[in-house]
């Protein structure tokens, strides 16, 4: 049961993130929900590589020979960078929308209909 704790956390975080993106009205809070979802996926990827008793996969002055897998760590790093770019883009959209529409409430940002 203890070994499954990271995956249970992933499920809880995904649920929290999805509820935030679907239910909140403020655009900044929706962006935070997307960040929580990204964190959940990153945690999932990193915890896939765990090997019991392993140390960090770095050869420089390593204490032992048994290491966790390094590939998911590279995948997670790429995902974090993509998350940063996503946040920057959505925040700049929010800035322009606030200037043009006067609000960041997504129920008000609805001029495109039909």
């Amino acid at each position, binding site marked *: 049961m203890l070994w499954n704790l990271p995956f249970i956390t992933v499920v809880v975080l995904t649920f929290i993130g999805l509820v935030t993106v679907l239910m909140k009205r403020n655009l900044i809070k929706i962006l935070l929900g997307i960040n929580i979802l990204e964190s959940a*996926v990153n945690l999932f990827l990193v915890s896939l590589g765990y090997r019991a008793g392993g140390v960090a996969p770095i050869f420089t002055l390593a204490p032992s020979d048994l290491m966790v897998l390094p590939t998911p760590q590279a*995948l997670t790093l790429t995902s974090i960078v993509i998350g940063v770019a996503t946040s920057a883009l959505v925040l700049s959209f929010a800035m322009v929308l606030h200037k043009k*529409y006067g609000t960041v409430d997504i129920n008000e940002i609805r001029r495109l209909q039909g």
Partner: protein
Amino acid sequence: MTFADFIVINAPALLVAIPLFAAFICPAVGRISTTARNVWVMGAMLLTAAVAFILAFTVFTSGTVIYVFGASAANLAVPLDSGGIPIRIIFTIDPMSAFMDIICAIAGVSVLMYSLSSESKNTSLEGYYALFLLMITGVFGMVSTGDIFNFFVFLEILSLASAGIIAYRIDGGLAVEAALKYFILSTLGAILILFAIGIYYGQYNALNIAMIAQRMQFTLLDRIALVFLVAALAMKCGAVPMHFWTPDAYSMAPASVTAFLVVASQAALYGLFRVVFTLYNVTLNCLVVGWIIIILGILSMVVGVTMAIPQKDIKRLMAYHAVSQTGYMLLGVGVGLAVLGNAALTSAFGFTAMEGGIFHIFNHAMYKGLLFLTAGAIIYRIGTRDLNKMGGLGHNMKYTMIFFIIGALAIAGIPPLNGFASKLMIYESVYLFNPILAIIAMVVSILTLASFVKVFHSVFMGPKLPEYAEVKEAPLPMLIGMGILAAIVILFGLFPQPVVDMLVAPAAHALADQGGYIASVLGGA
């Protein structure tokens, strides 16, 4: 080695390296002068298109090409001391990928030629062209790669660049709202895809598509991954019920970008087919998953065309038609998937259905791009998008009217244009599978024709309106861009059989042949 050998061997890497390099230097070149930047951008696109054609020629004559990044030789997929596991990122270009490369090359050149003049009135264009070249990198990378995480990375490059370029003309906030909707949905889809990639890595310890396909046993976790991937990729290509970003994003983007967004959606459709056919193939329950894709296709066709009829904005109407035509491709390939496990039915009509669906991808990119470019030309000259305010433009813009007629007849499936050829193949094979689906498809085609007759009448027919008396024809670069696409529409309509034999049939057979794909990557090729 000679220069020709160098290009032929390194073509897959040059496909993404050239647009990426050009995109990075574009802001610096833009500071010198506008002409220098136009020459730079057009040169990079023509070079990339040439490399894509050379690569496609190599693949169609001598079989699948693989390219290993960072190895000591380009086709050394499995290093000698790795125990039979491909450890590097591999670009696997089989005939289906080469087919998509050709589509992207032709569409990219036409659209860039068009946008050189349609954007010339606007300022601060360095960012625009850099984002455009990044979109091109993303699409070429998505359709050429053989590694599923690399596919995700290029998909994200494409999403970020498209969201940025849709919002480029802020347009009083409307374009930014459209880009926001598109981008949030894209991000949710990308997170789902990353979950699926994590599931594959955790189970099979492999990221290469051929390796996962070899080790695939359809467990419960694989079913969950399949659901995530189908949902996310169907959302990216605009299938109902995830299509709500399509009308907003397509109508608010600059005209040339919309024509290329169509190609980007087809690249996501290619990803869906690659996952279902190459990763899973007959390990999954072909009939059930095939029917799910067929139902997505039918819903897209019907909802797309019925929402398009009451539209007043010309680009929004064409965007709903894009949703509807995506339904045809899903229908054709879904029928092919549903009979994949049954060899007799597959050779009877399964391959024809898949060939119809895949040929429709090419035709749709061509005529939909042409229609969006003509709509852009009209909006460029008049300044409004409302159909009620337009009228009588046939007197002023004759060439644009001819191109619009060609595009509208092609989308309705009228012979001798290319839409008829692919739709006929879909009707024939789907009728043998289930007659009701074919009848629904034909009714949708009639409604498409009705909708475009309405558009044609309200835009081009009627007396000359006084406020449009000085409207001139569209500028020459725009006409050339539209002309390239129109020429292909007519050519493929008049001679569909050579195109199907040389391009589409190898692509369809390569898509269904999982063993061949695995053997070309892992079999010591």
